[in-house]
């Protein structure tokens, strides 16, 4: 019993890796090989698909656009969430519980409901098809997420820390920046990671709010999938490249992932 226990996670991980393997292996195949014969690994190993992506501007600008709006969104979300989370974790004020709940409802709101109104709102104020539009739209669910995660981390810091700092003569801003933020650095990292992640994986809003100038890589992919029929190798290469950023950063937050998904409440 105890000896066979490792089998369960192993089988599960193999199940997780199979579709990913198929995508990666397809990205190294030529179109002829993909369509002509069924092969378990690339017979004529080629980097042609990746070369296309890195030299064709319609492809690589997609990545740049995605990275720009994800970065704007992460910085914006965490910056506004920090003081708010501090207020929720330290003070009681009129309507605090209602406000906290209202924030949560936005994390849960279906993007499909907001797609059309966002399109009209952002067109009206003239930021349609900009990186800012996507970054702002994603704050709808990322700001509540960041507030909840940070509040969870901040509540773990004893209040004596604040009081000692004031006795030592720190002003509030000095205390907040020099002492408090370094204390919850892990929390800030986790919040930033989750903002990055949810902005990176979301497509519906990103696609609705952009046309050409700020089009995300994901939208370029869906368009290729439907228009050019069977350029599967190219599609697979583009998909493989979108997995890499997540795979790199995940290592740093591996012990906090559960806490992040539970909105800071494990």
């Amino acid at each position: 019993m105890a000896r066979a226990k490792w089998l369960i996670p192993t089988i599960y991980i193999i199940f997780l890796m199979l579709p990913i393997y198929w995508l990666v292996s397809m990205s190294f195949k030529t179109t002829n090989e993909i369509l002509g014969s069924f092969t378990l690994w690339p017979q004529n190993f080629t980097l042609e698909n990746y070369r296309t992506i890195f030299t064709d501007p319609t492809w690589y600008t997609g990545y740049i656009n995605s990275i720009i709006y994800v970065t704007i969104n992460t910085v914006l979300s965490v910056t506004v969430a920090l003081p708010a989370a501090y207020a929720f974790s330290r003070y009681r004020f009129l309507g605090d519980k209602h406000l906290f709940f209202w924030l949560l409802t936005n994390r849960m709101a279906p993007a499909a409901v907001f797609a059309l109104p966002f399109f009209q709102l952002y067109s009206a104020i003239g930021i349609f098809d900009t990186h800012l539009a996507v970054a702002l739209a994603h704050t709808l669910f990322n700001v509540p997420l960041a507030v909840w995660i940070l509040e969870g981390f901040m509540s773990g810091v004893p209040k004596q820390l604040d009081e000692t700092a004031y006795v030592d003569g720190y002003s509030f801003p000095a205390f907040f920046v020099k002492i408090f933020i370094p204390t919850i650095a892990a929390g800030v990292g986790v919040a930033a990671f989750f903002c990055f992640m949810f902005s990176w994986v979301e497509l519906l809003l990103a696609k609705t709010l952009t046309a050409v100038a700020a089009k995300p890589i994901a939208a370029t992919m869906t368009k290729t999938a439907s228009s050019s029929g069977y350029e599967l190798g190219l599609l697979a290469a583009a998909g493989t490249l979108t997995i890499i950023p997540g795979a790199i950063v995940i290592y740093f937050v591996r012990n906090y992932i559960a806490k992040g998904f539970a909105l800071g409440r494990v």
Partner: protein
Amino acid sequence: MNKTVNQKAWFFVAPVLILVAFNAIVPLMTVVNYSVQETFGDNVFFWAGLRWFEEILRSPRFHDALGRQLFFTGTILAIEIPLGVIIALAMPRKGPWVSVCLVLMAMPLLIPWNVVGAMWNIFGLPELGLLGKTLNMIGFDYNYTRQPGDAWFTLILMDVWHWTSLVVLLAYAGLVSIPDAYYQAARIDGASSWAIFRYIQLPKMKRVLTIAVLLRFMDSFNIYTEPSVLTGGGPGNSTTLLSLDLVKIALGQFDLGPAAAMSLIYFLVILLFSWIFYTVMTRGEEQ
């Protein structure tokens, strides 16, 4: 923690409030506005009252989409929650393999949703995909673009692949918080492994599992991108879930009134479950 009453805390919350209000309240009011009006284009609107709501609530199309949505959500919960618990129980508690397991298991969670859809689309192709080819080779007549049953099978398998790790991570976080002393006491009492699970592990996981159920419920209710890339709601309408139907009506046919009414009904369902989620989350903290 003892919190002090301080109304000035509103200043700290103000930036968040302004940002989210701009993003949530303005669009939501637009939706409410459309839901009670009729338009024939050219920005001419007529008062329609509650007509759209009645129409949506009575339309077989909405009932079908809601039915499919409930079936989908029910099925994935019934698979992902027990499976996640079993995997979490079998995971190592310490040693170098813990990190390896955590990182590999979290991988699907970080892949853009349309890539998840595209990946399974390719994986399941009857002639070119590993899954499709294998199933056909061992004698199943599998084709997810033609047969509704196969489309559902692929859709559910994809969601299990995508999100079971979330349940695993949460359940695992609950498990590692159990002190060793509990297990030692159980061993002295001669408790069976079922008894350990039932009376030590399950109570400790209760809260994280509630969170997992609610998160999976709400996120699966909102699912759009993955099925839209995988099957596009087809074949026919057989896998058209609520979000897919809503986007078809709103952005495809531009029927703003019915789409808005449907959005609001949809939103109320989500609101109800958010409230349950909130109660569960905050009740645990007061203990």
